[in-house]
């Protein structure tokens, strides 16, 4: 189990340094019918186009850190769901629900976030949203 998390971390680092310029994309690489729930600490929150980006660290059982990245919608769509640029702050302790990518990397599409004060913000990807 611990080796698995370590392996994931290594792959994430590799991915961050090896990705070529690609693009705003379709959802073919994402398990759009599955949810993963993780708890972590926010390391970056970028309110931007084409998709806002949430990064957070999750500590595994062996104390290794898994660096997660989740994309959301653009600010215009997020506003419609009650989000703002200041909804999330670096250091916030959050619970994240996301659709994971198919290749197992700790990357996904954000479904909802529960903030430190217990408030939950959803995205358009929640099935009953």
């Amino acid at each position, binding site marked *: 189990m611990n080796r698995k998390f370590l392996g994931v971390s290594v792959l994430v680092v590799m991915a961050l340094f090896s*990705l070529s310029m*690609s*693009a705003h994309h379709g959802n073919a690489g994402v398990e759009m019918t599955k*949810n993963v729930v993780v708890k972590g600490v926010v390391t970056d929150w970028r309110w931007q186009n084409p998709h806002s*980006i949430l990064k957070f660290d999750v500590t595994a059982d062996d104390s290794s850190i898994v660096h997660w990245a989740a994309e959301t919608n653009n600010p215009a769509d997020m506003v419609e769901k009650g989000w703002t640029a200041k909804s999330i702050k670096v250091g916030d302790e959050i619970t994240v629900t996301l659709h994971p990518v198919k290749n197992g990397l700790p990357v996904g599409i954000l479904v909802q976030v529960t903030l430190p004060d217990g408030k939950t913000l959803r995205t358009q990807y929640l099935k009953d949203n």
Partner: protein
Amino acid sequence: MRFRLVVMGVLAVVAFGANEAGLSQQSGAAKSKKAASAPAPRHDLSGIWAPATAPGAGIQAKGPYSMPDDGKPEHNPPYSALGLKALATHKALEGQHAVFPSTLSNDPRSICDPLGFPRADFYQIRYEQFIQNDREIVLLYEFEKRWRSIWLDRELPKEIPDNRWYGYSVGKWADDTTLVVQTVGVVGEPRAWLDETGRPISEDAKIEERFHRVDRDTLEWTVTIDDPQMYTKPWVAMDKFPMKLQPPDLDIWAKYQQEMICAPSDVKAYNDSIGGFESESR
């Protein structure tokens, strides 16, 4: 406090049917919520307009409102041989022939090139503002914060000095509440695409828009493509797309907090964090 991974596995199976729910390709203003509205004013399109059925109804990620790239024969444009050849070179991120992984795409939008026209009508129609005087209508597109002039007091140029991303547009009133706009001189293949699914457009295309103000609060937006290079006959890409009049004091950017602009640095941040992940494997 140290956090632990709570759940790595799959927790639930959810149906994903609402993505860009507004994409439902409903037909015309007839299906929008009908409320009593004052008659349309004569020769006046001014105002802020938004999709009538849902905020996301104008995103059109799968192709134009009336011609989504969904494999249905009736939604297949009448490609010419050249059109098919051009289409085959486009590696789109959306539609039935979307490439995977996304790193294979060559969509010019992905490097923040302008959408150009008519793609501006077929992607991210959200809040659109029409500012009108006797001489022209200025159409402000929310997406990319672009604008076009639709001249009311002149004819199309006999010769195009140079093709432009948003072309040359003139409008004539067909009746009291219908403006017919002709646009020529657009940037076409290979620099600009017609839609998200990679359908082609040439620099010789003539695009007709019909803006019909049904009543004070409802505008229908129709777009017809006439491009003999890429298509064997004219075809209607957007048929009576319904728009609803918004409050005149609506401050779009205050509401959204940020402009919908493709900044290369933002795209890089996105790609470094998220984009292209599909090409990696365990």
